[in-house]
């Protein structure tokens, strides 16, 4: 027999009456903290401090301590010169070019590279990006995210941002897929399964795919343009909120449901659990990331060797230079970006351009297409109409953003 809802609750009450005795409760420090972090007057400053702290840790731990302080020295100082010495064939040979160092022309002479950003071989740039930059970035990111999750901070953040996100048709819970996407878009897109309506899932997936850079990409950006990265985030945030607002107006599916969410008490995180979660996430990420970075290096290398890259660059030059105001050389990173965004950002480094063009390229790289792994998951989660909507959004956004940035750069005289 099954009971009705009311009868079942009635039974629960009767059982509880006999078995549960609730004594006096004295609010503890934990409860005070819970209160402070969810009340707007105090909660918003705390949220800003938490996110700022998160970012500082990410930069200091991943960027300064590990990448600059350790991996750059190892890769540029020892690994690259050693490979250049022992690897057969030498500069100018196609296989050497693919695996170790493509070199570059200086006064008509082909010279060897002196750092792993420029060498562009599978074993040099490929490994440096995957291990030297992305690994510390991903570890730093997931360590803090795991801590915030296990403490129970995220639901409070969700309550605080609900006011804003509800206005663009999502609700506060959307902060969770967004945060996860800042690590990797793939689990971010998966997490949209907890959103209630199809429309919300479609909007969320589109916004994640277009505007949210992944941890690997952020790590590379932080390495490449530390001074402009704040502007990159601001540009993306404007897009996220603005396009969200428009999508909410034009996409059918009605009003978004309101937030109804349990706000669990704070808990002391256990290191065992955080460690286990970190390990699962980092190892899972690397099983996908490393092969793709290396594969990306090979494909881009082959496109260069066969001359195909020049053809593509020539074909796209009018678009890139006239509409977006970036050099046609950026076509190579844009091709690589289909596979891996971190690799693509790394490929911008050797290209000669102004700081503003570099900034524009980084933004374009972020929004022009999600990486293949993310796109594959999007196809699985969305129906064909939604995929078309998502791609249409993407194309419109790329042209509008590229055009506006070009305009701003022209007015500012930054070319």
């Amino acid at each position, binding site marked *: 027999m099954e009971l009705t809802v009311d009868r079942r609750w009635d039974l629960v009450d009767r059982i509880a009456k006999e078995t549960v005795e609730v004594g006096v409760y004295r609010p503890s420090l934990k409860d005070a903290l819970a209160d402070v972090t969810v009340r707007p007057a105090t909660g918003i400053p705390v949220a800003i401090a938490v996110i700022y702290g998160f970012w500082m840790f990410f930069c200091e731990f991943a960027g300064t301590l590990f990448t600059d302080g350790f991996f750059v020295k190892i890769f540029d100082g020892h690994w690259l010169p050693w490979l250049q010495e022992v690897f057969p064939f030498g500069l100018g040979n196609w296989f050497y070019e693919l695996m170790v160092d493509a070199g570059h022309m200086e006064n008509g002479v082909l010279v060897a590279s002196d750092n792993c950003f420029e060498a562009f071989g599978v074993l040099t740039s490929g490994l440096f990006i995957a291990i030297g930059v992305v690994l510390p970035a991903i570890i730093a990111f997931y360590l803090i995210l795991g801590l915030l999750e296990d403490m129970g901070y995220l639901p409070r953040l969700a309550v605080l941002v609900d006011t804003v996100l*509800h206005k663009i048709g999502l609700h506060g819970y959307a902060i969770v897929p967004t945060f996860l996407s800042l690590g990797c878009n793939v689990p971010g897109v998966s997490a949209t399964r907890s959103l209630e309506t199809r429309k919300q899932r479609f909007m969320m997936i589109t916004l994640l795919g277009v505007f949210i850079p992944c941890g690997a990409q952020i790590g590379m950006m932080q390495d490449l343009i530390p001074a402009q990265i704040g502007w990159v985030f601001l540009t993306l945030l404007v897009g996220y909120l603005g396009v969200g607002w428009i999508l909410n107006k034009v996409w059918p599916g009605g009003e978004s449901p309101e937030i109804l969410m349990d706000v669990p008490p704070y808990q002391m995180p256990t290191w065992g659990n955080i460690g286990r979660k970190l390990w699962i996430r980092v190892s899972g990420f690397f099983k996908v990331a490393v092969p793709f970075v290396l594969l990306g290096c090979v494909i881009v290398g082959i496109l260069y060797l066969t001359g195909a890259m020049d053809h593509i660059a020539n074909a796209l030059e009018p678009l890139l230079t006239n509409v977006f105001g970036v050099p046609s050389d950026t076509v190579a990173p844009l091709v690589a970006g289909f596979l891996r965004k971190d690799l693509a950002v790394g490929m911008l480094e050797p290209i000669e351009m102004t700081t503003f063009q570099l900034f524009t390229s980084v933004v374009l790289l972020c929004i022009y297409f999600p990486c293949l792994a993310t796109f594959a998951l999007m196809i699985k989660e969305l129906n064909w109409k939604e995929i078309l909507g998502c791609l249409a959004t993407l194309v419109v956004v790329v042209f509008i953003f590229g055009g506006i940035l070009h305009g701003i750069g022209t007015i500012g005289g930054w070319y």
Partner: protein
Amino acid sequence: MDKKLSEMRYEEEGRIKKIEESLRAQIAGMGIREGKDIKMMTKQPIKGPVVVSVDRSNTSIGLGLADKIIVEVKR
């Protein structure tokens, strides 16, 4: 005095009197049901959600949903 949950003031307390049918089953699983004592913990500005406390557990509820809950406020 009865009022909507959405109209309760910060730190006001009361007892849940009526929950609209459409919301009832869903919200009951979270421990919020008729006859329970309820306390307003926070109200977010510009029509943001409220956070209420029932049986020591906190739940965040959008303002529109909070309109569907009638509370008998304690004086």
